[in-house]
């Protein structure tokens, strides 16, 4: 049974790789961008799910950590000439003026920077619970944004940074997404992940079992910030432009939407929801512009997209209370069981 499952898993991986190759060949640049976004949102969704879903901490600070990652990576990779062009109001701080790192180390450092900020914020914030924690993390994320708006010589302030090299391609975005998925699966299977879940279930009981609750929370938060930073950096290098406004609460909300839709505490759910939400966001974009029905033209209502999305979210919460997957995960065994059940019902 085990062997059969690993063969199936291997086949699945090969299939995904082939799909990736195929899409890479056939997609135009618009589709390619959406395809990359899917992967980035998988990374972001999983990192938020680690804190909100698995550890049971209601954090709303994701956009802040993404901003740290995106800015770090941009500042490290932009060419000196490009920096001079960007910083035309005030010159950039001298120590950054001449850095031009390759993508990989820059990406790693942006994750680390976000993790450090996450770690520093965790110490005061994680003593809070529930709503208070949500408000405090949201506050910190806004503080980061405000700081970035006002440190003209470091971040170019409200003008943002333009001309980021387009490093983010399928290999980077999906490679990172795959690594994140594998990392999360291994983490949650191990005793560490079980300890995080036990904290979500019953903090006092977890503490009584000898689990250092606060330390685990800090570690979970720091890891989550790390991946948020990486996701932010990938996003920046996909879009080519970043500015503080991009990292408003709305961005955190989008990721939260993915986590809730997929099932708080399900890796599979997050992956599926990330793809569905990203694609739908684009498909539904037509709603915001005017639509020609032939007989009449419906005037576009900007924001209708978000209305539909919120309705969708409510529907899922009403019917599936705990998201599409709940806390369940995909496995070949459960798929097999389901197929057999359908087959049994079939011939009747």
């Amino acid at each position, binding site marked *: 049974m085990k062997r059969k499952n690993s063969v199936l898993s291997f086949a699945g991986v090969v299939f995904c790789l082939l799909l990736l190759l195929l899409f890479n060949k056939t997609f135009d640049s618009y589709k390619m961008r959406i395809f990359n976004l899917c992967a980035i949102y998988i990374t972001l969704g999983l990192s938020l799910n680690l804190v909100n879903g698995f550890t049971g901490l209601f954090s709303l600070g994701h956009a802040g950590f993404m901003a740290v990652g995106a800015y770090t990576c941009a500042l490290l990779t932009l060419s000196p000439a490009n920096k001079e062009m960007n910083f035309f109001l005030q010159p950039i701080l001298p120590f950054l003026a001449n850095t031009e790192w390759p993508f990989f180390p820059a990406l790693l450092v942006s994750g680390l920077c976000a993790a450090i900020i996450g770690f520093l914020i965790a110490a005061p914030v994680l003593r809070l619970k529930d709503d208070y924690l949500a408000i405090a993390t949201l506050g910190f994320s806004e503080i980061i944004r405000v700081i970035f708006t006002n440190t003209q010589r470091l971040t170019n302030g409200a003008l943002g940074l333009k001309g980021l090299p387009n490093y983010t391609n399928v290999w980077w975005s999906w490679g990172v997404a795959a690594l994140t998925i594998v990392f999360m699966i291994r983490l949650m299977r191990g005793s560490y992940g*079980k300890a995080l879940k036990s904290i979500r279930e019953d903090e006092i009981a977890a503490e009584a079992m*000898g689990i250092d609750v606060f330390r685990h929370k800090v570690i979970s938060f720091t890891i989550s910030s790390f991946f948020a930073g990486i996701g932010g950096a990938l996003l920046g290098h996909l879009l080519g432009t970043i500015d503080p406004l991009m990292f408003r609460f709305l961005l955190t909300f989008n990721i939260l939407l993915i986590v809730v839709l997929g099932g708080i505490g399900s890796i599979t759910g997050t992956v599926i929801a990330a793809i569905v939400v990203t694609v739908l966001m684009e498909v539904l974009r037509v709603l915001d512009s005017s639509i020609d029905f032939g007989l009449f033209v419906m005037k576009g209502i900007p924001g209708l997209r978000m209305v539909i999305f919120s309705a969708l979210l409510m529907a899922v919460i009403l019917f599936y209370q705990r998201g599409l997957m709940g806390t369940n995960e995909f496995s070949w065994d459960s798929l097999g069981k389901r197929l057999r059940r359908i087959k049994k019902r079939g011939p009747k």
Partner: protein
Amino acid sequence: MLKVENLTVHYGGIQALQGITLHVPHKRIISLIGANGAGKSTTLRTIMGLVKSSNGKILYDGKDITTEKTKNIVETGVVMVPEGRRVFPNLTVMENLILGAYARKDREAIERDKKRVFKLFPRLMEREWQKAGTLSGGEQQMLAVGRALMSDPKLLLMDEPSLGLAPLIVRDIFMIIREISENGVTILLVEQNAKAALEIADYGFVLETGRVTLEGTGKELLENNDVKRAYLGD
């Protein structure tokens, strides 16, 4: 094995424990009885380091553990079965048990203890993959005890294991407590069910509003008139 000396605990302004002294000798069953709000749970929580004491000392095997972290206390072999079971409802029975062994590293010994727990509670083995929240109350209590045993305790603190269980199951639980004790685990048992708790105990303490008002062997306490009137209902 465990000595609690003049322990005082405050919750904000309220004084929950007003200087209690307990001795729990090696390999014995010691019962702690008392009315609601007497401070029984507080005593256990303070021993585990979950609540800070404002005065007094807790000695375990001669070592002062009064200000020790819970994690370290569990590692030295003291573990609590909390009041109201508190299993992890969305985790499976197996995951709950594994979490009980969180402070341990030795995989082989953990496997051995898993088998031991399943021998003690065959019902749990059948339900290995069931979510703990869907177990019956009695099964959840068994899981809570099993989970605590997975940490390979030398001293087991049990907070009202018979709470909310049917008489037959209560009998089972007390039989299991005796069995655990016969395997060499020292037990400090907190109970509302004073009769059963004193019958099983080698020695007992009566707690009233944060003070130890009576102590003696289980038999002595069962025959004491004050105890009879206040806790045995006759």
